[in-house]
């Protein structure tokens, strides 16, 4: 997986651009990607789309991260719905899901698969 990834990867930022236990946003071919850095978890980095389909604004990177029954989630800063960091599934609405992206921390670089 990670070998394969290196073939199509894009280096999107450096590790020290990330903020521990919080999110930032990157632009990727016209899309907005929310990157979350959770140094105590494995993997330590997660990427989902920045668009909040319920609040209808590009804000998910600015939500609070945490867990619901062990499931890692970010809570939208607008109306507080939770989105699973691994699957993008909205916990409150079974029919709402945001895209997720494959990311990896290699050395000091954040690599993302386009």
């Amino acid at each position: 997986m990670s070998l394969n990834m290196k073939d199509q990867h894009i280096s999107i930022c450096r590790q020290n651009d990330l903020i521990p236990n919080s999110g930032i946003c990157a632009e990727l071919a016209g899309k907005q990607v929310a990157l979350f850095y959770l140094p105590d978890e494995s993997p330590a980095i997660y990427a989902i789309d920045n668009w909040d389909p319920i609040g209808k604004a590009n804000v998910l990177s600015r939500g609070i991260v945490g867990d619901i029954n062990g499931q890692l989630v970010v809570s939208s800063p607008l109306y507080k719905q939770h989105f699973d960091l691994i699957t993008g599934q909205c916990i409150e609405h079974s029919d709402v899901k945001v895209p997720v992206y494959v990311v990896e921390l290699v050395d000091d670089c954040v690599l993302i698969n386009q």
Partner: protein
Amino acid sequence: MLKVVIIGNGMVGHHYVEQLAASPVAAKITVIGGEARPAYDRVHLSDYFAGSTPEDLALTTKEHYLDMGVDAHFGDMVAHIDRSNKIVITESGQAYSYDKLVLATGSYPFVPPVEGNNLPQCTVYRTIDDLGMIQAQANNAKVGVVVGGGLLGLEAANAVQNLGLETHVVEFAPGLMGVELDAGGSSMLRRKIEALGVKVHTSKATELIETNSEGKGRVVMHFADGGSLATDMIVFSAGIRPYDQLARDCGLVVGERGGIAIDQYCKTSDPSIFAIGECALFDNKIYGLVAPGYRMAEAAASQLGSEGISFLGADMSTKLKLLGVDVGSIGDAHGRQEGSVAYTFSDERIDVYKRLIVSADGKSLLGAVLVGDCSEYDTLLQYFLNGIDLPSDPETLILPTNAGGSPALGASALPLTATICSCHNVSKGDIVATMDAGFCSLAEVKSETCAASGCGGCAALLKNVVDDEMAARGLDVDTAMCEHFNFTRQEMFHIIKVETIKSFEDLLHKHGTGRGCEVCKPTAGSILASLWNDYVLEEKHVGLQDTNDTFLANMQNNGTYSVVPRIAGGEITPDKLIVLGQVAKKYQLYTKITGGQRIDLFGARLQQLPAIWQELIEAGFETGHAYGKALRTVKSCVGSTWCRYGVQDSVAMALYVENRYKGLRSPHKLKSGVSGCTRECAEAQSKDFGIIATENGWNLYVGGNGGMKPRHAELFATDLDDKTLIKYIDRFLMFYVRTADRLQRTSVWMDNLEGGLDYLKQVVIEDSLGICNDLEAQMDAVVGSYQCEWKTTIEDPEKLKRFRQFVNSDGQDKAIIFVEERGQLRPAKEEEHQKISATLD
């Protein structure tokens, strides 16, 4: 597999689909909906004009049906039912065969047969498409008329008024809501509605509508009594008629005045065909409310399995807010039952009307009417539905409590059969059973039973029942903050203080589980700030803050932020005013005077915030903490410096107080006010702590607020000198910060303090707990370590890195689009977005 075809995808048709899909019956479900969109919440249609979108109103989506394996077709009407071959054929020519057919076609608005009723200015109020037509007619219109003064007519009038039109209601009968209300209730409702600016015309039969050739209004309505009314648009809402043509055409039995006849199993005269919802006639009655429709859907769906639930009629009591007026009607509101006696209470000062209809023996409640105040509705409904014996003096049920009225019926007095949630048919027995099965918290009961997830009207009663049951089981009412911490905010505060905990990580490690969430993180962040007053954006605290605190600005609906510099006491120099104007102009920010005597600049993009603040700080501004659960504003009046009545310098005091407590993190926001005399122009008595000047010093008031539940502050101490005043406020605030629950304003906190105001006086004035030195020292520490968070932030390049839209480019968020209105920018609405992006592409 059993082929089930459902005609009509309204609220009831959709409920049927959900019931059937969730049942063990293996069925191939096909839905044919006449409207272009899947089922939506018709009951809340009026919310559309208050900002709800069709997506907000949606009850389901095409994708969801697809996921459920339901074959759904929209925007096509069934034109014909071929009963002998068991096939339905749609207008577009599609044919579907069925084993069982369900008619859920609902009803359509009745438009009186008057000449001119088909002019383009005439509309109806039933579907989302109708709303579009109404909105289109309302553009350029000044006056709107609603024909029909019943429940739906008044809903429509609300919509017309929300659209900003001069609103008239024209009713054929002598009173409003004649079906649900007696004459007294009806005339009180009229008074209240007229006071809101709606013009009511009763006993008016419209005879002709014609295009207007003279000045005012585009059409003119002529009435039987010779009068006329000019208007720009008309909404007909004069009753509903069942959609039963399909049934008539294929020979099913229909009622004399319409409606598809059904039995208690919701079967029509053809045993393979069911009818449910507003198109169905049971016991010669059409049920024009959604709850009975849902019961029919459940009964009909159960016939396909082994259960066989019956529908035996339904209660039509209603509680509504019409044009902001509370209206309730229970049972026999008109007192038609023989021998019934009535009790009436009416208070014309506050426009409240209440009437009870009681059986001849005085034992049971037959009906009730409430206008202007529905607080007794839940209790009365329980007496009515459950045949609970009335107290010997039933009038106490509607009298104000200070006049001998009796308190609400406790949850424990309700029988198990009592319906708690009528939308989802949940009885007290269902709740008890759910709790017996181990689902004890309110949230669990809600998600297991669906109670309180419909109209929401039963939420308070549901909580009472759950709390009461918990207490009866000897369970503690659950006070855990969230799944990560099993204690209250007060307990968390205590732990952090006693153990000198300095970070969330440490706290979680020692006392919590999991990784935290958006409830416990900001709470801990706030406590850490109250106690140690570190810079909130320090790396270890950043992830704890709500977005507003993280970016030191308030997030708006489109993801931009507002900027609120502190303008202590509302006092500002002309030079500073000019700077605000210049900054707003330069960054094209929408500018508004807030309700808190300061100036808010809206629409800043994340990446603009540092530059904006740089300029503001250079001009001497500081952050206003509009984003924090912290001190907001201290409102002032101009006081003795200028005002001929002022007895103290209220502006100087407001400035002192605001500057002293700025930056103090607290369980909820804090507001204050200082008035220069008893005329109270600063509204200090509506603040968490308010100060009013007297000849001899200051009176201190505590525990007031506006907001969702306004409450006046209570007098705490009188004629204080400056020093004592501040000492008491220090203690009061710190005691609140220590002991209040999360998001609990001072008023609610005080109400929950055992001993209330008197106890608080003992603690703060008499130091009964011996903690006052500590409280003061803690306040001094917070005051002494104040920093303007924006200043700290713009001085630190590391911190500024966060204020970039993208970590890897200087691009902008293209989804943020502004349009101009009244000379300023505002966020584009969704429809405008689509138009603008279309022209950009």
